[in-house]
């Protein structure tokens, strides 16, 4: 636990001062203060009960040497019984309470962390891996919650040991000293074992990871190996890794196997010393036999807290740094800031960039005093090499990023003054790799549906695309489950579902980052149909990768290094023979029917290929 905790720091991580951290954490506990108080009381009860058991027994042993009445016997038995029942009962209540406190705090922290993540803009997600954000929300919150359990568990053990300690010093301080003297030895041994164990465990894990990697590689390639009859070769590779892992892990196992035997032996020696020293005192009449027995019995109750103590700090520390990571996620500042929250009326879809300055980071200016006007209902295709600024323009319109200068006006209004949720509801966005949530096709189409949309409307729209051919090719039609992230659908089908989402939503502004994935021609044709239906009713910004899309645009905007180089439709631009014609040759030529019909590349092939 916590071995890798220092590996995953992010730039938004911050060091909270101890005071801030404690205050922050206390904030989560305050609503549960009554329950916490209860837990503390129960802890005290458990500790007293736990400490009283050896004391009662030792008193009993002393009583045995005098006259025993039946009442005495009953009282002694009853007292031990009472202690046992009390321990169990109070422990039950304490665990119940702590479980609830932990569960509620973890829940609250999770919801807050998730909500904070939703507030972050896309620059945040560009920078930080989503896997790590997820682990902060799920496991770091959990680790933090566990600290509570750790603290209370240890506290009850330490308190119990403390109470016993006080009682024992009261009986005989010299004997107590013998007992306490053994504790640092145990602590020292426990600590050095931990260090050693960590070292061998790390090596063991590395060897393990190596075997796993080899297995993964060769199992994935097994079909190839079989195809080419190379089984013996990959077995050799596996065998070596497997044997090496065995060697390393056996060392680890031996080190771990040492721990308890060594501690037991030391515990035995400590007991022997107490038996002798106590017997000596008893023989001189300095302590009673019962007290002597009390000392021997108490050894165990000091042993465990000390052992746990050796692991405690590391665990608490990893819990605290988990808390720190969660707080950092919650506190990370948003880059996109709205200056007002004006309600957004039904838009007409007029978009204007005025001297817009934009960069993702300090190193590179993406847009430099960029100007562009898109009129309502227009279809604009953005083309250019990678990094020309196509998607930046689209993402700024979606308000996914903050720009640094100039103005973006939508229907003449500052985009920063909008109520963002209302504004985005009038946008239809389809990204290059369309994202679907697990659930049915229809649920995905209706991801952002207002409630007045019926399923028959969805079905009707679905069948408008290519006569519903795509719906029929899904195993269960619109109720087909798409799988995690839409994995059970082909890229083309996912594309269609995303376009359907937009069709149902009827936005005023449509932003499409066209897919580059290979899609079968039949599905491609249906995508084209869906696209045409959307383009007819919206102001559209298309980051085009397909020739047909470029040709369908009212205006093609040719970008280079954040500047507009050329504008016009396909034919005009081709005639100009400028950057567009160049881009056409680089990216679009092979999509033309001319290319398909001519096998141009054949002509470039050297010699005797025609057979």
């Amino acid at each position, binding site marked *: 636990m916590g071995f890798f905790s220092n590996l995953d720091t992010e730039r938004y991580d911050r060091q909270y001062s101890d005071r801030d951290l404690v205050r922050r954490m206390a904030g989560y506990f305050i609503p549960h203060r009554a329950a916490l108080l209860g837990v503390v009381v129960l802890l005290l009860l458990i500790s007293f009960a736990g400490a009283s058991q050896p004391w009662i027994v030792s008193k009993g042993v002393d009583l045995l040497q005098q006259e025993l009445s039946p009442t005495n016997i009953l009282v002694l038995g009853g007292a031990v019984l009472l202690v046992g029942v009390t321990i169990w009962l109070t422990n039950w209540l304490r665990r119940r309470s702590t479980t609830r406190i932990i569960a509620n705090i973890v829940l609250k922290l999770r919801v807050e962390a998730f909500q904070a993540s939703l507030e972050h803009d896309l620059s945040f997600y560009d920078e930080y891996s989503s896997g790590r954000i997820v682990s902060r929300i799920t496991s770091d919150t959990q680790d933090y919650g566990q600290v509570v359990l750790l603290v209370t568990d240890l506290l009850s053990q330490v308190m119990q040991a403390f109470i016993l300690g006080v009682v024992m010093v009261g009986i005989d301080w010299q004997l107590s000293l013998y007992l306490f003297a053994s504790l640092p030895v145990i602590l020292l041994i426990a600590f050095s074992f931990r260090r050693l164990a960590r070292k061998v465990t790390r090596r063991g894990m590395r060897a393990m990871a190596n075997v796993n990697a080899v297995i993964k590689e060769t199992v994935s390639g097994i079909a190839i190996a079989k195809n080419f009859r190379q089984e013996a070769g990959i077995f050799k590779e596996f065998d070596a890794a497997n044997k090496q892992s065995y060697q390393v892990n056996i060392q680890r196992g031996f080190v771990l196997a040492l721990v308890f035997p060594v501690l037991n032996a030391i515990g035995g020696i400590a007991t022997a010393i107490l038996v002798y020293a106590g017997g000596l005192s008893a023989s001189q009449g300095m302590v009673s036999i019962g007290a002597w027995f009390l000392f021997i019995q108490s050894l165990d109750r000091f042993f465990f807290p000390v052992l746990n103590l050796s692991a405690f700090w590391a665990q608490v520390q990893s819990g605290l740094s988990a808390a720190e990571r969660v707080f950092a996620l919650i506190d990370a500042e948003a880059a996109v800031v709205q200056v007002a929250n004006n309600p957004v009326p039904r838009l007409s879809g007029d978009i204007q960039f005025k001297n817009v300055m934009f960069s993702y980071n300090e190193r590179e200016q993406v847009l430099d005093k960029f100007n562009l006007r898109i009129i309502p209902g227009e279809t604009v295709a953005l083309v250019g090499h990678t990094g020309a600024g196509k998607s930046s323009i689209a993402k700024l319109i979606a308000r996914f990023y903050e720009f640094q200068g100039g103005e973006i006006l939508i229907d003449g209004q500052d985009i920063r003054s909008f109520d963002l949720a209302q504004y*985005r509801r009038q946008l239809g966005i389809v990204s290059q790799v369309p994202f679907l949530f*697990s659930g049915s096709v229809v649920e995905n189409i209706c991801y952002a549906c207002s409630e007045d949309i019926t399923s028959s409307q969805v079905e009707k729209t679905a069948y408008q695309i290519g006569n519903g051919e795509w719906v029929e090719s899904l195993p269960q039609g619109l109720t087909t489950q798409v799988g995690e992230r839409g994995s059970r659908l082909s890229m083309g089908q996912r594309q269609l579902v995303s376009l359907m989402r937009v069709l149902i939503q009827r936005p005023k502004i449509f932003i499409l980052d066209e897919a580059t994935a290979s899609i079968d021609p039949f599905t491609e044709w249906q995508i084209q149909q869906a696209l045409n239906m959307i383009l007819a009713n919206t102001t559209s910004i298309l980051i085009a990768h397909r020739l047909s899309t470029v040709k369908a645009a009212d205006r093609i905007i040719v970008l280079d290094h954040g500047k507009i180089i050329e504008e016009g439709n396909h034919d005009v631009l081709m005639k100009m023979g400028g950057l567009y014609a160049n881009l056409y040759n680089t990216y679009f030529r092979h999509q033309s029917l001319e290319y398909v019909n001519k096998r141009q590349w054949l002509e470039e092939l050297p010699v005797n290929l025609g057979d």
Partner: protein
Amino acid sequence: MSSVASPVEFSISKQYPTKRTGPVVWISSHVARYRYLIVSLLIGALSNAALAALVPVYIGEAINTIRDDPTDLTPLIRYALLIAGTQVLRGGLQLARNFSAELISQRLERDIRDELYVSLLGKSMTFHNLQPVGDTMARATNDVREINLMFNPGINLVVGSANFMIMPLILAPRFHPALMLVPALYIIAYALSLWQYLRELRPVTDESRAAFGALNTRLAESIDGIETVKGSAQEPQEAGLFKKIASRYRDAFVRQGDIEARFLPLLLLGLAEAGGFYHAILLYSRGLLDIGQVVAYFGLIQLFGFPTFVSLFSYSQVSLGMAGAKRILELMNRENYLDQNEAGHSGPMRGEIEFRNVSYAYPENENALQNISFKVLPGQTVAIMGQTGSGKTTLVKLVNRTYDTTVGQILVDGIDVRVWSLNALRKNISIIEQDIFLFSRSIEENISFGKQDASSAEISHAAKEAQVDEFIAILANGFKTVIGERGVTLSGGQRQRLALARAFLTDPRILILDDSTSSIDSATEDKIQRAIFAASRGRTTLIITHRLSQIRWADVILVLRKGEIVAQGSHEELLATSDAYRRIFKE
């Protein structure tokens, strides 16, 4: 069910034979190799518990000697030394126990992984095609590890704590036979309550695991799909949904905590201690025990503490290991669906393919292919097109018997594929799948994978034919470059062309290419076209493709829809007969 006797495609001679009839038998047959270690484990465990039980006995004796004669310290010293001596000895024996358990468990892990791996290598391609890699991985890594942990600490602790459980029962009669009562009652009550506890806990832990899984999955999805979430202003809905799922987990967590909180064996331990103490004093008051014996007996009862808390953990470890063993065994025992037909036809192949009324259904599914008939002459190129789920991939996998038809016949050179020797059939058929797998080895080794003795001239020729030579030339280490190392990542097109180079070297008569790469630029497209063209020359080629130019120039085009051929013929024929086909060739 078992297929131990069925022919395997790969085996090694020195393997230790095991019995695979059931998980317990199987694990035992593995462990039987190390019977001396088992003996040493049992001796270690028994003596460990026995020596631990001696401590309270000696303490009792020590108390008695001081009570009898406080002036004579010799017996006290003797008992103190006895305690120290026995406990150091106990540490040594416990070490023997632990080491034995560790050796067994590590060897078990090594041997089982080895056995599983060899068994995987022996399985047919059909098996591997149907078996998801992730699942196999999980069994070869996690499940194997679970078996290791099942033995140590699992079984090691079960054996160890069982010995602790019986010690009080064995030693109590030394003092008085009636003292067996409390230990006996405790053992029974403990077993019953533990059984009940586990039964109660299991559905709750299942639910809490499921709830956590749901939480994780949805969370990961919302974060990965954040652009979609934000783009459609669904943040509040997502937050609401998350809260609902997180609350479900919270509830499961609380329910599990509640059950764990009222762990009954803890109460039983308290009862046993009270009962044992009371019983001992009662006997003492009747003069049947002395003080030392009361103390010793009470100490014996306290031995129950260790097994009471430890066994819970060790039992769950054992049951996890058993579940893992069952899964591994299931995988190893799963039958191969194809017979190898080693005595079958094995002449040279020309490459003619004919499908006659072929239908195929995956187990427990409706037909994936329906009544497929077509014929391909040697050297022809066939383009297969259709939407996702139309059966394209299934169709080509019938040719090399990755799957066997359920209805109809597939003939290669006029001979039913089932009459061919599987080895001869596959040697002449090369399949390049959609997801191209390359080993993390050098480019050279990857290309020559099927012909390990290929000369470097042959390798570079193959690379040239496959249009990867230019790409390889710009790499710092050229053909020696290791794939996946230091950021050497390949695009889909490059991987595909490397796979083509690999196929070139083995010179198959039939090439099957499942092509789903896309090229962003025209120059790359040119390369892919050239490579595929070169690969298809002189051999029968089946291409699943979305590329219009591949389709346009194929000798035969098959259009599939929902498992049926809805159109077939040359480009010109299809333009004349199929509306759907004509549509896609219109600009």
